[in-house]
């Protein structure tokens, strides 16, 4: 299909959906182009899910200027979008009192960045009260109560749904192949796998591909150097063993291997830091061992038998090691929002608003849309209902009496609603409902999920995929006794 927009956003990650949703409060036409069949399948999908307090970045960097302000917006953002966000607080721990000065430097840096409530704890009893199972060797902690955890996929899906509700068009399976800049008028024509789209302004939020996209308008001012991070994810059964976001002392490359509760209840270890020539989200034996080793330094007694899965994500690291945010020097009205590595998730709400301001400065007229509704209703979650709510919900929906994912107690009603809201794949259903995220990792429910998807989408079960493209699940029909 072809369409024309005031603003075209390239990329459906946290930045693309965040900007699109921020623009959706105005009377402008916005289209988002995403190469995958769903939002959130790039860098946003696989990271630690941390909303950082904001003390890490050097003052004066873009990272620093968006982190603490982004953190402050998270409460309101996630409340409107009905996405679980928990301000658990973070620890930077060290076993060695001689490292105290490093923590003091971080604290000062944080205060300069506008982080509130930072505190250094040297009282072992207090450390144990806040984090009972941390190694007894930890003597000094930088405590940042404002840090929190969020499920980045849930958040991105919510931003997508709310933006769509407020009029933004999303085009999936639409990889950008080329961008033509009109000579006379301020207009771009974007050629994509999903059709041609005209736009007056373009936002480049293409994650690890943002340098390629910038290259299409002759902008070679930055390059992305993907760096892989690997993770272990534990069974939600041990929820509560770790209570806060735990970092070791940061190094030059990264904030180190952290141990944290995930927003949806399980515990995450990771990431390591591996610069890659070729982007890959495959995990490695060495990487996973390193991550496990790092985690065990902070929590030596944690039950590693509860590891349920591992995964890897890519940091979209720019050469400057900072965010690249602003109009391109190579093309007017083309705005790069690139190099969004950690703390990009934290910064996202602040970046989104900043980009709206940038567009206004570039001449985009922003007229409030009185129909804008910032609130988004989540899919009702059976597993979190009390008995009265279950009674009402199951009375109302027959499909709610049918629990498809037994480990996470996800009903057919939830799965069908996830499909109604845009899930077309097993992964799309997983990120919306948690089915296949539990103890059995999909062993029991996958055959039924294929059936439900195939029924709802009206296609053969053979067409159903795990994550689009060639990720089919069923090769062919059996001989059926022939």
């Amino acid at each position: 299909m072809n369409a024309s927009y005031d603003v075209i956003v390239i990329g459906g990650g946290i930045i693309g959906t965040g900007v699109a949703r921020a623009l959706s409060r105005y009377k402008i036409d916005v289209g988002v182009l995403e190469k995958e069949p769903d939002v959130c399948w790039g860098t946003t999908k696989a990271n630690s899910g941390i909303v950082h307090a904001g003390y890490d970045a050097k003052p004066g960097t873009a990272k620093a200027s968006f982190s603490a302000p982004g953190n402050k917006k998270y409460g309101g953002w996630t409340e409107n979008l009905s996405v679980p966000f928990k301000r658990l607080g973070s620890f930077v721990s060290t076993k060695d009192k001689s490292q105290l000065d490093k923590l003091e430097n971080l604290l000062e840096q944080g205060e300069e960045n506008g982080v509130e409530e930072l505190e250094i704890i040297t009282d072992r009893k207090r450390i144990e009260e806040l984090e009972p199972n941390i190694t007894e060797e930890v003597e000094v902690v930088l405590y940042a109560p404002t840090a929190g955890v969020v499920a980045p996929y849930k958040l991105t899906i919510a931003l997508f749904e709310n933006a769509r509700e407020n009029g933004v068009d999303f085009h999936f399976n639409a990889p950008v192949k080329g961008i033509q800049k009109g000579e006379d008028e301020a207009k771009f024509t974007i050629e994509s796998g999903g059709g041609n789209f005209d736009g007056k302004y373009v936002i480049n939020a293409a994650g690890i591909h943002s340098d390629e996209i910038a290259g299409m308008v002759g902008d070679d001012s930055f390059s992305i150097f993907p760096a892989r991070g690997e993770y272990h994810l534990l069974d939600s059964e041990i929820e509560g063993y770790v209570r806060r976001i735990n970092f070791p002392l940061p190094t030059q490359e990264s904030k180190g291997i952290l141990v944290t509760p995930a927003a949806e209840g399980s515990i995450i270890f990771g990431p390591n830091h591996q610069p890659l020539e070729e982007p890959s989200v495959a995990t490695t034996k060495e990487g996973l061992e390193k991550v496990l080793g790092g985690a065990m330094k902070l929590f030596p007694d944690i039950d590693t038998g509860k590891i349920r899965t591992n995964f890897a994500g890519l940091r979209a690291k720019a050469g400057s090691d900072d965010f690249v945010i602003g109009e391109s020097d190579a093309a007017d009205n083309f705005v790069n929002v690139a190099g969004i590595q950690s703390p990009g998730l934290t910064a996202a709400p602040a970046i989104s608003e900043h980009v709206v301001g940038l567009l206004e400065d570039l001449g985009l007229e922003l007229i409030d849309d009185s129909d804008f509704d910032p609130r988004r209703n989540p899919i009702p979650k059976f597993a979190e209902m009390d008995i009265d709510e279950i009674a009402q919900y199951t009375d109302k929906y027959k499909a709610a009496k049918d629990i498809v994912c037994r480990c996470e107690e996800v009903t057919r009603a939830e799965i069908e609603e996830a499909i109604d809201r845009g899930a077309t794949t097993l992964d799309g259903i997983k990120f919306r409902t948690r089915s296949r995220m539990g103890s059995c990792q999909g062993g029991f429910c996958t055959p039924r999920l294929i059936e439900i998807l195939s029924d709802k989408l009206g296609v053969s079960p053979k067409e159903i995929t795990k994550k689009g493209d060639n990720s089919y699940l069923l090769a062919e029909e059996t001989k059926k006794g022939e």
Partner: protein
Amino acid sequence: MMNSNIKSTKKDIVVVGGGPAGMAAGLRGAEEGAEVMIVERDIELGGILNQCIHNGFGVEIYGEELTGPEYAERFTSQISESSVDVMLNTFVLSMRPDKSMTLLTPNGLLEVEAEAVVLATGARERSRGEIRIPGSRPSGVMPAGTAQELINKKGFLPGKRVFVLGSGDIGLIISRRLTWEGAEVAGVAEIMDYPTGLNRNVVQCLHDYDIPLHLSHTVTDIYGSNRLEGVELSRVDDNMKPVEGTGQDIDVDLLLLSVGLVPENDFFKEAGVTLSERTSGPIVDEWFQTDVPGIFGCGNSVHIEDLVDWVTMDGFRAGDGAVAYAGNGNLQSAEKDVVPGENVNYVVPQKVSGEDDFRFALRVEEPMENADISIKGTDISFFEKIVTPGEMEVNEVEGEDLEELQGLDEIEVEVTRRF
């Protein structure tokens, strides 16, 4: 807690799970005159038997080889003629130590109070993440039992060129099934230096079809970003660690995992039952009663069994126990611990009274020839030509032998070489 709109009922015995263990327990309960309810979340009774269309079931009990559905039918037909109240498409939402529970049925919520509860919830397959295979995350990697369901119940082949990790029975049987369907099974890898499935399955499912079995090997990498494109197979050393430089790539579009089962123990935990670290199932006595009085387990929810025949026999026994408990609120107290000794990984039951005949099942830690399975400090001994961890050993202590246990506080079971 209790909502006035929610219906409630009482039963002598509620059996959770309508597979072979639950059907046997429920049927026995009804035969003995108890009011029994079987709760099953699927659309039919039978559990995993329904997807096991191969034969070999029933040799121990019926002396004939039945398919899974045929074996199940022997029970479902009896149940349909019995007084058992079968609740299909029904889920247990919460299980409480006082043996009350909340069910979600097709007709809405139902509160049930039971005198005795039998948890026959079966097992789940271990997943890729639990054995921590690194690599990419394409489609085409799944537990062998899931593939079995897709093929036998849904009518679809999940892949055309297949590698199987793990020589457990499901993996062996599915290899043969895939071959029959025209898929090519490139090989089966087993990290141990012996197959973990039954020997008869190694012969009938692999050897007869020239499917290579790679002992002391494992999968060390997974390739393909969307659909599986291949795996790396590596040799392992004596500590089961992959040996550098032994990796070979095998092009396949399906990797099946047959790397063990884990008892589904969630309801035991909810009910406050103590679990065994060795089996991950509950600690039970000779009647399969757990340490929460009136709560029983049987079948794979207690420990992973080889043969459905043993599952059925345990189900009958648990049914008897539940009837006795529901009748007078008491069973003989089992004070003697049964503990694993030399070359024994685990023994079930973990407690006995020493008053009644009992059957005990064990798995050894290492294969052994000409083995004596014996109770330390007694003359009770059973000879086996060969024991391996893949084959469960079941023996019975009965009659006069029980007297030998009188003086023992603890019953240590050991497996030693006779000669």
